[in-house]
């Protein structure tokens, strides 16, 4: 029986080894993008308070995400413009789902 080994790079050395399913399926780290607002918890979108193209101030409520029996307010992390809304009221979304895309306010 021949086993096929994978290459595994560690501290500049290439080891031959097997990988675990857990390792293969692991969630890769990605550099956070401040313009993409994703859910930190799975839940239901209760209502959306803004429209695409609307200018918002830092701290404005963008939408309400109900999760674990709590109505969580998603607020604007900075003053800017709503570029795209990716969810509708009533949607059930998992953790990490992209909800709203923002962009810099052109006027600024």
């Amino acid at each position, binding site marked *: 029986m021949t086993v096929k*080994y994978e290459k*595994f790079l*560690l*501290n*500049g*050395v*290439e*080891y*031959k*080894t*097997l*990988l*675990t*399913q*857990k*390792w293969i399926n*692991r*969630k*890769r*780290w990605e550099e956070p993008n401040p313009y993409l607002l994703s859910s930190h918890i*799975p*839940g*239901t979108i209760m209502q959306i308070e803004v429209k695409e193209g609307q200018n918002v101030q830092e701290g404005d409520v963008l939408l309400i995400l109900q*999760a*674990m029996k709590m109505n969580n307010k998603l607020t604007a992390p900075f003053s800017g413009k709503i570029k795209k809304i990716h969810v509708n009221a009533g949607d*059930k*979304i*998992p*953790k990490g789902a992209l909800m709203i895309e923002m962009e810099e306010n052109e006027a600024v």
Partner: protein
Amino acid sequence: MSLKRNILDLRKRKEIVLQGGGEDAIKKQAAMGKLTARERIEGILDKGSFHEYDMFVEHQSKDFDMDKKVLHGDGVVIGTGTVYGEPVAIYAQDFTVAGGSLGLMHARKITKIMDHAIKMRMPIIGINDSGGARIQEGVDSLAGYGEIFFHNTQASGVIPQLSVILGPCAGGAVYSPALTDFVFVVDNISKMFITGPEVVKTVLGEEVSMEELGGARVHACISGNAHFFASTEQECFEQIKKLLTFIPWNNQRKAKAFPAKAPKAEYNIEKILPADPTQPYDVRDIIRAVADDSDFFEVQQDFAQNIVVGFGRIDGETIGFVANQPLVLAGVLDCDSADKAGRFIRFCDAFNIPIVTFEDMPGYLPGVEQEYMGVIRHGAKVLYAYSEATVPKVTVILRKAYGGGYIAMNSRHLKADFMFAWPTAEIAVMGPEGAANIIFRKEIKESANPEETRKQKVAEYREKFANPYVAASKGYIDSVIEPSETRLLLKHSIEVSGNKTVMTPVKKHGIPPF
């Protein structure tokens, strides 16, 4: 006359209780491929050794018409018996009685047999098969769980606690197995989760099957909650009995000694290790090459396979083996493998089982994911567990022993009693490639042919430092040994450690990095 009648009456009462939830419920249990509570107990204990207590216990709840319902034995069977002639306490939840739901009296029966096990200093085996809290009993059933958890914690480190998941074990119920020493699961039968798929769907909107959420494989391979995975209940019972041959009955005793047996000839210790430190091999073959009869009983076989832990014997005495596994993820220490090793080491220490460590590892796993998952605090568990352990501790460095990993894997500096190294050992702050790149950065950069210089410097570093003799010259390694001497020296080390005594500072308890 009257006595005879009384006896007949007693027999009749017992017969009724022994029917559990009745014929239909038993048929349903069988249709799910499951044995009944009493069949399971019979399957684990020596034949005819089981004696049941609290058969006539009944629930006391009155709400929701519960006073009109009779739940035989309140859904749990408790008692004592023997395994290979040694006494054990056991309980088994009876799914045929109200789905094995846990009410206050059900819980009180469990804590009663646990108290007995603690007092008599014998292992307790808990068979879980329950739909969860008996909702009609309200806070009383929560009280029941709480009392069980408290007892689990009191018993921890005093007597071995085995949890066998043979059905659903959901909600609060999961925390009793989680507090015990070993969890056994069976494919397609065990289901463990905090909240079931229904709730996950309604609350979180995630659709997942029961098997994907908390099946036996999930806990054996991914979550690490289970220690032993079996395909059938019968196989599971054999695993339980085998484990019991390796462990002592309580923290005051040593595991039973068996007649010594030579390892099998097929495991030739000189033919396992590849010379090139980047090539893999199965470290379990090294363990089998030194263990009596090459019998290695692995714990958490399918979880964090980059480290191997389990029991074997050397010269008849139980040994806890811990070994880096170059076959998987090059044998790195990461969050999961550190958890796995740390816990196993603490079990061995609590129950007087000497620890033998085989080391061949390139270090801790770097990267954002691991750092975010807390590889620092998880990795610290290995350091803590080894440092804290006062049982005889022997290390054999087979090949790589780099950096933090070298320190963590039961080094001399954490008070290993014996440090052996094979001549193939490379003990260094890091691998030759990394080290040469840093130390000779300037030379490499300024060289006419940097790649050539780099190779040359790596070779130079390897020649000078990637060996066991630098550490041996400082007394960090006691002896550089030939692979063929390993078993003999392990045997000797354990033999001469029989009266090991260590004074630790007086404390209530340490604060390990949970």
